[in-house]
């Protein structure tokens, strides 16, 4: 990559496709420089927009799940209308609808977006890079059990696997099963035990 100019004013976003091409990165870089040099945009505004994008995170999803584990009435509301139940916790929701899918002894749920990178960003933040990869997007629908095995989860054959493709307007959150000693843990401990992978469905047991 030709990189003979200085980037002191702003940190470049890294945008490359699966093949490692950085064409989009070069275009974004050039556009940003032009906008800043013409006074239409400041580096501070760019940084602010990035911070805003990055401020939601897994802690919000974990908060929702821990509440559902400890409050049966909340869990019912969450499964009925995910968006309204998330908003109850004063979490701003940008998604049209959030559908919460519950894991049980007989059922495991896995979330994917085969067409792009749809993800419940209001409650999980930005998706991990593997979620956006063409390999995950193709294989999560075609051979999901092999994908889960690569994440270290060998799902028993008698547990049904539902794969949810977020191809259109819905966004999905997996409600994992609570740990056996859920009643003995504090809400803070419960929240800390929940990982992003549990909420996408590439992990199942919450330790």
């Amino acid at each position, binding site marked *: 990559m030709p990189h003979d100019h200085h980037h002191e004013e702003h940190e470049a976003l890294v945008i490359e496709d699966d093949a490692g091409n950085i064409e989009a990165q070069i275009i974004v870089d050039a556009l940003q420089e032009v906008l800043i040099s013409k006074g239409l945009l400041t580096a501070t505004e760019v940084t602010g927009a990035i911070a805003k994008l990055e401020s939601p995170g897994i802690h919000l999803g974990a908060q929702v799940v821990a509440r559902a584990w400890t409050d049966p009435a909340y869990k019912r509301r969450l499964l009925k209308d995910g968006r309204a139940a998330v908003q109850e916790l004063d979490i701003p929701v940008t998604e049209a609808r959030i*559908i919460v899918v519950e894991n049980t002894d007989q059922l495991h749920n896995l979330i994917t977006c085969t*067409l792009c990178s749809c993800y419940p960003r209001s409650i999980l933040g930005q998706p991990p890079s593997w979620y956006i990869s063409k390999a995950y997007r193709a294989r999560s629908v075609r051979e999901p059990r092999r994908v889960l095995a690569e994440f270290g989860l060998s799902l028993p054959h008698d547990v049904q696997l*539902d794969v949810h493709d977020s*191809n*259109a307007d*819905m966004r999905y959150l997996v409600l994992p099963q609570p740990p056996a000693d859920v009643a003995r843990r504090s809400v803070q401990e419960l929240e800390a035990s929940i990982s992003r992978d549990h909420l996408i469905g590439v992990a199942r047991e919450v330790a």
Partner: protein
Amino acid sequence: MTRFSAGDIVTVLALGKRGHVRIPHYIRHQTGEIVGYCGTYLNPEDLAVGNTGSRAIDLYRVAFAQTRLWPDEDHPAQDRLIIEIYDHWLAPAAGDL
């Protein structure tokens, strides 16, 4: 009144539309079961070209048996793929799955 309700058997059409189409190729021509109604949404095929004036359309969640989607793979019989399909991409299917 929606055209389909939960339990209905439907086939996904292959409309051959170009542009911002949200119905992936792997699900076209496939037959599955309506498992949920999502409400009405503006058609992304119109929104992508700046047309925000068209009527909102019904969106359904449809479940498909993985064994039927990928017969060459070794999926357990009960595993499902669930995806959202807009009304105009669906046709009623005759008979059982």
